[in-house]
């Protein structure tokens, strides 16, 4: 295994985040804090509890997922799209490095950044609401799995995108609405029955539900199903990335 290559790619990507500290870390944390202020403090005071949990506290897993999903995708897609855009990708393509090593470097760095953001948001939330994590190991497990899965998904978007517009297309038009409609701010039990059924077709619901269960032991759908769906999503992403590299899709002619 070309461990030096993994190291330099990982280090390069982490360094990029470090050099753009405000954009990489401060921005998503500030956005999430604003959600706490608006939804938790302003609106939340009019909602007593959701499924036995204070509304402000109930929001924490959903908001973490909102930030994790968007940041994982943004970090990973930009990480691979930018070398493609500038042409520097030729160096990676001509290096003695395998698909797995490329993924560990790029996706690993993007997932690490998202994981750090998740932890910062969790720590920040502690200043606003009382926090209790029922299953911390599961919480970390879901966190890591989500960071890796969606970084991988972002990597696919970065490989697929041919311009900056396409790079933003799926995150803005697909992912963000899915996260907002996936129970980030509410329990799906609060929706009318027809919408509850419709919401079950949104895969993000399972993700947020599983993650929320690790905090409060309450879930909209079963934890096993949540975990299975996240793993299935991860597997699909791996297959797509493998196919992209195997065929050279948008990389090699």
């Amino acid at each position, binding site marked *: 295994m070309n461990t*030096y*290559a993994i*190291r330099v790619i990982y280090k390069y990507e982490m360094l*990029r985040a470090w050099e753009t500290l405000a954009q990489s870390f401060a921005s998503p944390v500030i956005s999430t804090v604003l959600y706490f202020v608006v939804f938790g403090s302003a609106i939340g005071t009019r909602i007593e509890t959701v499924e036995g949990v204070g509304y402000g506290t109930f929001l924490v897993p959903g908001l973490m997922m909102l930030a994790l999903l968007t940041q994982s995708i943004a970090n990973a897609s930009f990480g691979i799209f930018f070398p493609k855009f*500038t*042409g*520097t990708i030729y160096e990676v393509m*001509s*290096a003695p490095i395998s698909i797995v090593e490329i993924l560990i470097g790029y996706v690993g760095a993007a997932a690490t950044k998202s994981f750090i953001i998740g932890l910062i948001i969790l720590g920040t939330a502690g200043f606003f609401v009382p926090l209790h994590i029922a299953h911390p190991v599961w919480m970390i497990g879901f966190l890591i799995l989500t960071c890796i899965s969606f970084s991988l998904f972002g990597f696919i978007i970065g490989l697929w995108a041919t311009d900056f517009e396409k790079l933003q297309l799926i995150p803005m038009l697909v992912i963000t609405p899915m996260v907002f409609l996936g129970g980030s701010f509410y329990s799906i039990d609060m929706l009318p029955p027809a919408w509850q059924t419709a919401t079950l077709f949104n895969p993000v619901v399972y993700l947020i539900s599983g993650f929320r269960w690790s905090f409060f032991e309450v879930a909209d759908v079963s934890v096993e199903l949540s975990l299975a769906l996240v793993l299935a999503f991860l597997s699909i992403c791996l297959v797509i990335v493998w196919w992209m590299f195997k065929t050279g899709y948008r990389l*090699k002619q």
Partner: protein
Amino acid sequence: MQPIVSISNLSKTYSNGFQALKNVNLDIQSGEILALLGPNGAGKTTLISIICGIVNASTGSVIVGGHDIIADYRITRSMIGLVPQELTLGAFDTVWNTLCFSRGLFGKIPDPAFLEKLLKDLSLWDKKKSMLMFLSGGMKRRVLIGKALAHEPVVLFLDEPTAGVDVELRKDMWALVQRLRESGVTIILTTHYIEEAEAIADRVGIINHGELLLVDDKHALMHKLGKRQLIVELEKKISDLPKALTEWTLDLSSDGSRLTYTYDPLKIKTGIDGLLQAIREADLLIKDVHTKKTSLEEIFVSLVNTKK
């Protein structure tokens, strides 16, 4: 001796149907400088890109250092360095960081002493902390060479290394290429500039429309295909060739002041003596006489036009 790079029946057809390479066969010997000459779209970059792993071949195979570039890609790629045609560099990296990145990417253990020597050889040591975006075009070109050499390759591909650079830098680049060859690196360069091939290459390959028209020793090529020209400057201008000279294959310049006679220097009888006598007998006064050797450029143009 086993060639360091061996290309067999290599063809490439892009998805839009364009056939960039047609059954190319080529052996490159260790330690030589091979110049691939060809017009835009001839297939030079495609050929290099396939060997380096950036483009997939449609058919054929490439062996580098005795290893197949697909099956043993880790070995072959670690032997190859590539300097691309475009100045493709990350704007926000420093010179030092980008070289460290390149070395690591190719699986080499960090070696600051080697990179320091490399930067000094490239006259970039004082720029090691500079951001790439602030470097001049010539410096960026040298950084790209540094990146390609950072993992100590034995084969270096230079894709039009002097395109768009000034004469002074071009000469510097040629000197650098010579130094690299002396250190044992095999160099394959593509170029539009005939003078570049003439100045630094050992062998010249001419490629056009995806076909490798010929590969030969530079001097042998010029000797085999090079013609000489005898140019006779006349004292007085003439409008037509005198009858006595019509049996000679002569070109009269448009202003009527110069006769050009093309001959084969390898022939025992070149006809020069007879021609000069015929000119005198035609009562033409000779102002000056000189000969000119056909340049590689003229050979190239002639070959490319013949094969069209």
